C-alpha cells in the first residue's frame, strides 16, 4: 500500500464524491466525507515520513513511464502542502456537520459534501502531480467545486461573489493554459521534470518568456496577489463558514505552491530572477498589498470580511518571501503557507461559531463575546495573537524567518513594511478583542457554541500554539524543501 500512497490521496475523494451525492440525509454524506478526509490525512502523513526517509517519491500513473504517462512526484514542498490540505480538511469536516446543516439546510447536504470532496480532490491533485497539464485539469476540478460551494452561502450576494470568482478563476486558468501551451510548443513535453531539463537551452526565446508572463499572471490571479485579489473578499465573506475556513486555509496556498513550482523548479532561479523581472514586480506588489489590505481590514465592520482582507495581506507576506529568490526567503514563504493555513483556518472557524449563535459576523455580534461565548472568544484571541505574530504562536515563527530573510539581503525598507503590517494587525485584531472583552453583549441570553464546533476549532487553535513551540517539524521541512527547490528541485 505504501507504494501507492500518492494515488490513494487522490482516489479517496474521487471515489467518495459520487457516492456522497447518492447518499440521503445530512449525516451519511458527512460521515463518508469525514472518514475519507481522515484517510487522506493518514496517507499524507505517511507520505511525508516516506519522503523524509527516502527522498523524492515518484509514482507513475498506470505504470506508464514519464514523459508518456503522468507521474506524481512528491518532494518536501508538496508533501508539506498535502499534510496542510488534508489536515485542514480533517478538522473542517467534523466542524461542518452542525455549521453546514445550520447554514445551507439539510436537503442540500449531499451536494455540499460532494462538492467539498471534489475540492479536496482538486487541491490534492494540483499538489501531487508532476505534469503541467494535469495541474490545469485539477485546477479546473477544484475551481468548479469552489464556485458551487461559494454559491451555497445563505446570503444572496454569494451568487454574485461566486460568479465573479468564476470569471476571474477562468481567466486565471486560461492564462495558465496559454502559458503551458507555449511551453509545449517549444519543448514538446508537459512533464515538469522534462520541462526543467529542456528549458534552459531555449530560455532566450520570446515564446518561453511570454509563457512565463502568462503563467505567473494566471497563477497570481488564483493566489489573489494584490491588485488581482478583488474576487477574494466577497468569495470568502459570503460562502458558508466551513467553506471559508477550508478555502481561506488552503486554496490560495495551493496556487502559491504552483507558483513556487514553476518559478523555482521548472523555469529555475536563474531564469526567473535573472532574465525575468520577478522580484522587481512581485516585491512591490506584495508590500503594497500587505499594507493596503491590512489598512482596509481595520475599517471593516464585518469581521469575516476583515479576515478575508487580512488573508490578502498575508498572501503579501508569502509572496514577499518567495520573491526574494533566496533559500531563506523561500523557507519563510513555505512556513507562512503552512502557518497561515493554521491561523486563518482557526479564525474563520471562530466566525462560523459566532454566526451559528449570533446569526451574523459583524463587530456588533462580537461585542461582549467574552461573557456569552468565552471559549469561542478566547479561541479568537489566540488565533489573533498568532496572526499578529506573538511569540509561541506559529505567526511568530514565520515572521521571524521573513525578517531574517530580509535582513540577510539588507532590505531595511522591507523589514519596516513587515513590522508596519504587524502593527496594523495589532489594530484590527485588537479592536475585535476590545469589543469582545469590554463591550456589552447584543443578546446576553446567547450561550456558548456547541461542542461539535468548539472541539475542531480548538484542535486548530492548539495546533497554532503547538507548532509555535515545537518548530522542528515545520522549520526543518520548510528548510529542506527550500534547499531542494533552490537546487532546481528535480532529481532524476
Amino acid at each position: 500500500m505504501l507504494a501507492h500512497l500518492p494515488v490513494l490521496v487522490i482516489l479517496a475523494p474521487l471515489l467518495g464524491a459520487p457516492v456522497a451525492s447518492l447518499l440521503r440525509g445530512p449525516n451519511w454524506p458527512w460521515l463518508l466525507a469525514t472518514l475519507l478526509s481522515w484517510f487522506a490525512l493518514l496517507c499524507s502523513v505517511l507520505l511525508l515520513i516516506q519522503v523524509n526517509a527516502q527522498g523524492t517519491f515518484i509514482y507513475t500513473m498506470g505504470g506508464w513511464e514519464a514523459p508518456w504517462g503522468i507521474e506524481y512526484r512528491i518532494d518536501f514542498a508538496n508533501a508539506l502542502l498535502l499534510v496542510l490540505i488534508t489536515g485542514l480538511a480533517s478538522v473542517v469536516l467534523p466542524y461542518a456537520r452542525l455549521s453546514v446543516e445550520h447554514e445551507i439546510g439539510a436537503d442540500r447536504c449531499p451536494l455540499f459534501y460532494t462538492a467539498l470532496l471534489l475540492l479536496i480532490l482538486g487541491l490534492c491533485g494540483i499538489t501531487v502531480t508532476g505534469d503541467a497539464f494535469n495541474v490545469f485539469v485539477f485546477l479546473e476540478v477544484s475551481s468548479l467545486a469552489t464556485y458551487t460551494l461559494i454559491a451555497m452561502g445563505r446570503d444572496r450576494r454569494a451568487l454574485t461573489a461566486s460568479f465573479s470568482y468564476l470569471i476571474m478563476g477562468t481567466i486565471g486558468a486560461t492564462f495558465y493554459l496559454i502559458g503551458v501551451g507555449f511551453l509545449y510548443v517549444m519543448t514538446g513535453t508537459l512533464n515538469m521534470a522534462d520541462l526543467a531539463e529542456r528549458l534552459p537551452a531555449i530560455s532566450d526565446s520570446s515564446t518561453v518568456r511570454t509563457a512565463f508572463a502568462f503563467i505567473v499572471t494566471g497563477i497570481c490571479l488564483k493566489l489573489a496577489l494584490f491588485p488581482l485579489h478583488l474576487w477574494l473578499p466577497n468569495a470568502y465573506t459570503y460562502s458558508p463558514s466551513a467553506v471559508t475556513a477550508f478555502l481561506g486555509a488552503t486554496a490560495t496556498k495551493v496556487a502559491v505552491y504552483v507558483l513556487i513550482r514553476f518559478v523555482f523548479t521548472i523555469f529555475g532561479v536563474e531564469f526567473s530572477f535573472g532574465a525575468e523581472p520577478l522580484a522587481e514586480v512581485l516585491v512591490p506588489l506584495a508590500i503594497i498589498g500587505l499594507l493596503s489590505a491590512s489598512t482596509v481590514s481595520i475599517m471593516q465592520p464585518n469581521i469575516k470580511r476583515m479576515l478575508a482582507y487580512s488573508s490578502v495581506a498575508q498572501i503579501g507576506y508569502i509572496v514577499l518571501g518567495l520573491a526574494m529568490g533566496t533559500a531563506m526567503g523561500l523557507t519563510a514563504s513555505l512556513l507562512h503557507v503552512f502557518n497561515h493555513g493554521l491561523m486563518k483556518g482557526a479564525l474563520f472557524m471562530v466566525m462560523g461559531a459566532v454566526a451559528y449563535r449570533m446569526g451574523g459576523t459583524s463587530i456588533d455580534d462580537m461585542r461582549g463575546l467574552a461573557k456569552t461565548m468565552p471559549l469561542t472568544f478566547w479561541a479568537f484571541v489566540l488565533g489573533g495573537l498568532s496572526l499578529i505574530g506573538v511569540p509561541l504562536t506559529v505567526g511568530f515563527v514565520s515572521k521571524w524567518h521573513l525578517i531574517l530573510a530580509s535582513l540577510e539581503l539588507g532590505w531595511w525598507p522591507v523589514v519596516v513594511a513587515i513590522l508596519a503590517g504587524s502593527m496594523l494587525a495589532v489594530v484590527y485584531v485588537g479592536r475585535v478583542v476590545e469589543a469582545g472583552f469590554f463591550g456589552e453583549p447584543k443578546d446576553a441570553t446567547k450561550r456558548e457554541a456547541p461542542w461539535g464546533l468548539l472541539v475542531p476549532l480548538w484542535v486548530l487553535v492548539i495546533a497554532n500554539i503547538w507548532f509555535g513551540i515545537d518548530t522542528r517539524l515545520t522549520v526543518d521541512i520548510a528548510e529542506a524543501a527550500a534547499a531542494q527547490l533552490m537546487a532546481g528541485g528535480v532529481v532524476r
Partner: protein
Amino acid sequence: MTISELMFPPAFIMIIGAMLLPVVRDSFRPVLLVLVPLLTLLMIWNLDDGVLLSARFLGYEVELVEASNVRRLFATIFALMAMIGGFFAFRHAKVAELSAAMAYAAGAVGVSFAGDLITLFLFWEFMALFSTIVVWCGGTEEARRAGIRYGIMHLIGGIILKIGIEGVAIQTGSIEIQALQLESFATWMILIGILINAAAPPVSAWLSDAYPEASPTGSVFLSAFTTKTAVLALWLLFPGQSVLIWIGLYMIFYGIIYALMENDMRRILAYSIVNQVGFMVVGVGIGTEMALNGVAAHAFSHIIYKALLLMSAGAVMVQTGKRKCTDLGGLYRTMPVTAVCGIIGALAISAFPYTSGFISKSMISSGAAYEQYAFVWYCLVAASAGVFLHAGIKFPWFVFFQKDSGLRPKDPSWNMQAAMIFFAAACVLIGVFPQILYDFLPFEATYEPYTADHLVTQLQLLLFAGLAFFVTLPLMKRTLTISLDVDFFYRRLGPILWRAFERLVKGLGDLLQSLVVKPSKSIPAMLLRYHGPEGPLARTWPTGSMLLWVTVLLVIILIGARLL
C-alpha cells in the same frame, strides 16, 4: 524539544501555578500563592552554574536555562516578590490579577535564566503580555486606557528588540547572551529595546502613566519585574557601555523632579522607580566589578523597599479609597503598622544607614568614585539628597503626618500587615548585616559600607536634605496639580494623528474610486456590479476593473523582461 539534564525551566512551575490559580477553590488559593514561588525558589537554589537545559527552536539551539550567580540572585528576588506580593494581595485582588501576576513573575524568572537572546525575547514578550493584563485589572476606564498605551509601548519595544536580535543572529550567527559591543545597528536596536523596558528617556513616562492606574495590589507587582529584568539584561549584555551612565543620570533627575511636583502618592513612587533604576543603569555603565556588584545588590534591595512602599500606599488606598496627597494626612494614629512600615521603606530608599538601600547604593557611588568619574559621583550624591526629599520624606510626611485629614482608617487586613512587616524586616536585616546579601553577589565583595567616612557623609547629606524639606515646606505642599510629561503628546496627539490618518485613507480611496471605478461603469461586464456598504478601498470591485489589473500585470512582466 530535546531535554537535557533538567526536565523544565524554573519559570514553568510558576506558569503552571498561574494556570491553576483560577481553577482551585478559594480557600486553597493563598496556599498556592505561597507554595508555588517557594517551589520555584527551591529549584532556583538547586541549579548548578552553566547551561542546564537546551532545546531546538527556530533552527537554533536555544538555552532555556543557564544559571550563574547574578541570574540566581535576580530570580530569587523575583520569586520572593511573587510570594510576598501574592500573599499581600490575595484577599483584595481579582483572581485574574493574581494569575496574571504569577505568570508575569514567571516571565521575569524565565528572563533571569535565559541563556540566549531568543529565550530572553520569548519570556520578555510573555512579561509584556501579562503585565498589560495586570494593568487592566485596575478595572477602571483609566486603567483600560493606560493598559492600551502600556501595551503599545511594550509592543514597540519588543519589535525593536526582535529586529536587533535577528540582526545579531544574521551578522554573527550567534544568539549567545554575552557582552555586546555597540558597533552595529543591530546591537543598538537591542540596547534601545531593553532601555524602553527600563523606562529610559525619552519614553520614561510609560511607567508613571501605567503603574498608578493598576489596582492597589497590582502596582506592587508591576514595580518589581519589568524594569529590573531590563537592568539584568543590561548587566549581561552591555556592562561598561559609558552611554548608559548619561542615560542613567537623566533618569535619576527626571524621577526626582517629577516626583517632587507630583500629588498622587502612587505616581510619586512610580517616578521614584525611574529614579532608582537610573542608579542601576549608571552602575552598569560604569561597569567595574564593584559597580556591577552594586547594581545587583541595589536591584535586590530596591525591589524589596519599593514593593514595601507601594504596599503601604496600597494599604492606604484600600482603607481610604484616596490617592492624592492633598486628601490624605495624619493617618499614623489609626494605621500605625502601615505608617511604620512605610517609613522603613522610605528610609531604605533614601539610603539611610542600617537599611538595605544604604549598603547597596553606596556601592554604586563608590564605583563611580574609584573610577575617577568625579562629575558622576557629585551627581549621584546630589541625587541621594533628592531621593530623600521626594520619596524619603515627602511620601510618609504627606500621607501619614502633616495635617489631620479627618480620615480614621484602620490598619489593613492581617495578610497585608504580615507582608509589609516581612519586607520591612528584610530591609533592616540586610542593612544591619550586609554580608547576608554580599555573599550572593556575582563578584567577590570586599566592600565595607560602614566606614566613618561613609556614615558621616550620608548622615550630613540626609540631615541637610531633611532641613531643606521643612524649610521649603510651603513650596512642597502640593495643591491639586497634574504634571505634564512626554506621554501627554502621545495621549493627545495619538488620537488626532489617527483621525488624520483615517481621513487620508478615505480621501485616497475616494480619489481611486473616481479615477478607476466610475469610468469603467460603461463596460458591459459591469452588470454584475455590486456596491458594498463598506469603505471605498474595500468596495466590491467590478469584474472589468479586475481584468484591467490582470492585463497591466501581464504587460509589466512582458515589458520588464525586455528591459532587464
